[in-house]
């Protein structure tokens, strides 16, 4: 596709309209939808993710890129085969039981969606049973739990225990994050990974699923 670089630039610049135009042009010219998706949209978001982690981009800019990427995916949708249309994975996400804070969780959600994951958002103050139910119903690949308070951080462990006793622990990767959470704590409770900030969550999620 001759317009791959302009497409990547348009996603990085958050130019929703331009992304749509280039995507549809490509389709008209007979480009493969899967190529546009992988070499254009997803490749662009990989660059965005790297820039964000390097603090080269502001978060509102990243979200504009994610929105442009989504617009591109929507334009591509009718042309994708069932296989192409597959998400990178399904993420069930929520704030730990007792925690009403959701800034970090919402940010991770938006970035995961922008990164090509399908996200089921359970909101705030999520009980372990609710996580369990959502994992079952959506055949999730990843469970993301966020906590801002040291008191609610404790309930992250309950989610992992609930997954274990339901026999679902091996099916999913558990990713935890939030201000008081540390790498050591994540290891202690048996989570698969700890994300220090929203920016690294997408990269970590990909590395967990596609080693």
């Amino acid at each position, binding site marked *: 596709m001759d317009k791959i670089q302009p497409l990547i630039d348009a996603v990085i610049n958050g130019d929703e309209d331009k992304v749509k135009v280039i995507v549809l042009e490509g389709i008209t010219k007979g480009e493969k939808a899967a190529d546009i998706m992988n070499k254009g949209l997803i490749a662009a978001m990989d660059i965005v993710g790297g820039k964000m982690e390097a603090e080269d981009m*502001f978060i509102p800019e990243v979200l504009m890129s994610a929105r442009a990427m989504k617009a591109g995916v929507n334009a591509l949708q009718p042309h994708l085969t069932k296989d192409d249309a597959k998400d990178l994975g399904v993420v069930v996400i929520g704030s730990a039981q007792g925690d009403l804070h959701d800034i970090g969780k919402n940010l991770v959600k938006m970035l995961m969606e922008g990164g090509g994951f399908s996200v089921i958002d359970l909101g705030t103050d999520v009980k372990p049973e609710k996580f369990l139910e959502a994992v079952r119903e959506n055949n999730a690949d990843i469970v993301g739990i966020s906590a801002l308070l040291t008191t609610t951080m404790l309930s992250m462990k309950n989610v992992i225990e609930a997954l274990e006793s339901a026999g679902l622990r091996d099916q999913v990767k558990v990713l935890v994050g939030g*201000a008081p959470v540390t790498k050591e704590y994540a290891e202690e409770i048996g989570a698969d990974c700890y994300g220090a900030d929203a920016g690294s969550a997408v990269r970590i999620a990909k590395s967990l699923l596609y080693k």
Partner: protein
Amino acid sequence: MANICSHQQALNSPYAGKVSEGQCQKLYWACLEILERTGVSLHDQEAVDLCKKAGALVTDGNRVRIPSGLVEKAFSTVPKSITLYDRAGNRAMQVGGHRCYFGTGSDCLHLLDHRSGKRRRAVLKDIVEGMIVCDALENIDFVMCMFLPSDVPQEKLDRYEMEAMLNNTTKPVVYVTTEFFGCRDAVKMAEIVTGGADTLRHNPFAVCYINVTTGLRHNKEALQKLLYLSGKGLPFTYIPSAQGGVTAPITIAGAMAANYAGVLAGLVLSQLKREGAPFIIPGWGGNMLDMKTMVQPYADPQKRGQAIDFGHYLGLPMFSLAGCSESKLVDQQAAAEAALTLYSDVLFGGNLIHDVGYLESGLSGSLPQLVICNEILSWLEAFMKGIEINEETLALDVIDEIGPDGQYLDHPHTARHFRDRWYPKLFERSNYDGWENKGGSSLGERAVGNVDKILAEHKPEPLPDDIAKAVRAVFE
């Protein structure tokens, strides 16, 4: 005690201003419009009912639109100044106007251990040591618990924090609790220390720090604490923490309008619950999250000054924030940010200035950093004093007596006044050889030494045994 007050006498001591009275009025009107037009969501039934009974419009169960008249009425009953006492009942601080007092912050997850130099999770003993250092430092006027103890039962950690403060310093306390019941227990402990509910109300020495989700969204715990403490006539701060760019507009004015609308909603509730209930408002405004890292910058220059101006305009006591840094170390950035934020707060005249000694945007704390801040405050106290110009200080007779070729070193006038000048305790003024002979240390190294010395020598006045036991019995 730090004796710092801006605007002490007209044109005779330093002070600063950032927004005009007209701008404050615009901001105030914006808050009133938000309360009437957009309203706030109150996640507590008693709070909703109180507003409704007073004439507020309630929709969707808890969306409350508050008429301006209720705000204006609240201003006529709320105290404009609050006198706080120490643990022994001595008058300690008159909180209001342009008077500045300084204290630590609360609940840092980590401690930068001055013994090992390493960052680690904080434990209860760190709070105890922190309080001993605070008790000894002459420019720390009130305490907050500094650290979050990881080695006590986590559902009761706020009770252990309160106990450690009561046991290890006589200075006034600002306490934070996670849930409502923790607040009730903290009040019980404070009542035991003063000898009952009436004495605590008349000689309050403990202030509750209430955090509210955002200006327009008031969580249940915050409202429960507000109503309980107002009902008892006990002082508390009511601090909505909307973050510009995420839960409020990114602009300073917009973030402040949304946040202070919430402050005024809290003010109305406190006065509806009990007319004359003391109420403390925030003295920083226009918070944002760093749009690159999503970290909340504490030493952000743009959230300083204007909120203190607005607090003076509203005429209410303020809880302010300075002496903090985003740095992960006790380094040049930490010293610069601590000094700049303390400097701006004293110039503007914030009242209860907390978070002194905070590092890593509130996630870690350091005792040497606190000691360095104490020295900065000593410098500022000297700087902020007005200058006397009179016969004795001009010393025209002495100048004439000594003449152009004489010297002043052994003159009685010098003997009378040389102690009026400021001398550092921690900052280094020796010549190079003198400094080298004393060990050639950096400020950070001297601060570590100072912490060790205080911990080895300072013994705070303990609580009587029976009182200490009764305090423990509240939560055990």
